[in-house]
């Protein structure tokens, strides 16, 4: 059946098209009767449904990842432009608010010794973004 010059995979693919032609031409009721006797047909249906559910999840996860990346990228671009704050300045601002017993600071934030430079900057940035303090404070 197979000439040596032909790729057997391509030949099988041609036969597959013949099988599909019959499959799609088989009346639904007749195929259901076949499926009642042939477990592999039922299994093929289940596999197809699962492939669809997996595709929904994969595409959803990819969209979520893309949104996260875009958000991260937007945040990274925004921060240096609006908040060129270093840790010392951030700590001074927090110390000033603490001295004034400002309610905008949480209890944890008032203890400057317990927060890292990063947290201090982040806290001040958040307060500026929320409009709770002026960025030129």
């Amino acid at each position, binding site marked *: 059946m197979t000439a040596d010059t032909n790729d057997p995979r391509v030949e099988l693919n041609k036969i597959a098209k013949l099988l599909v032609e019959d499959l799609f031409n088989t009346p639904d009721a007749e195929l259901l009767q076949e499926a009642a006797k042939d477990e*592999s047909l039922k299994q093929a249906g289940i596999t197809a449904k699962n492939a669809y559910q997996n595709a929904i999840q994969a595409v959803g996860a990819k969209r979520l990842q893309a949104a996260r990346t875009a958000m991260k990228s937007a945040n990274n671009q925004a921060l240096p432009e609006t908040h060129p704050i270093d840790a010392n300045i951030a700590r001074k601002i927090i110390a000033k608010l603490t001295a004034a017993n400002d309610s905008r600071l949480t209890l944890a934030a008032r203890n400057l010794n317990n927060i890292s430079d990063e947290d201090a900057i982040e806290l001040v940035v958040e307060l500026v973004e929320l409009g709770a303090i002026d960025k030129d404070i």
Partner: protein
Amino acid sequence: MITTEKIRDVLSVDEFKENLSSLTEVKWIKLGKSAEYLCMGLAIEGQDILNLAFCKALEGKRKCPRGLPVEIFIYGAMKSLVDAYLKNRKRDPLHLTAKVLEEDGSLDIDDLQPNIDTPEEILKAKQTLEEIDQTLKDDEAMVVMAQLDEYSPQQIQETVGLTPTQYASTLRAIRRKLDKLAK
């Protein structure tokens, strides 16, 4: 130029999903089985090709023409993907599992991970062809031969000497025999 009319001629992703949600059990069987047939003798699985075809449609990269049954549309997508896969593997016999994502990160034919190398795949396909050859008889074998020579269904019927009904019965017999063979 894309006109509004042309845009309306294809299903939106939501419409596509609605159509799929109302698909009957037997249509799912046809989809699953056609995927198996397309991957017959290849180093990829039917479920992977189905998954890839669904992803393309859900991402809006392949759009289903309005009025075309979704199962036929998905079959068409799978057929194109397998054709591309075969072309890829044929062009480069050493092509193993190289993964080249499209620039936008969407799934591509190269995301299909063959589970065996090309020489093994060819050997497996050859063995499957031999098994098919031994299984089919007379008219069935002649129909398959004519199909391999890329005759149209009409030409096959004329060449083998079958009426349309006999041709349909022969195809059914071939499908059932090959289904048994695959088990």
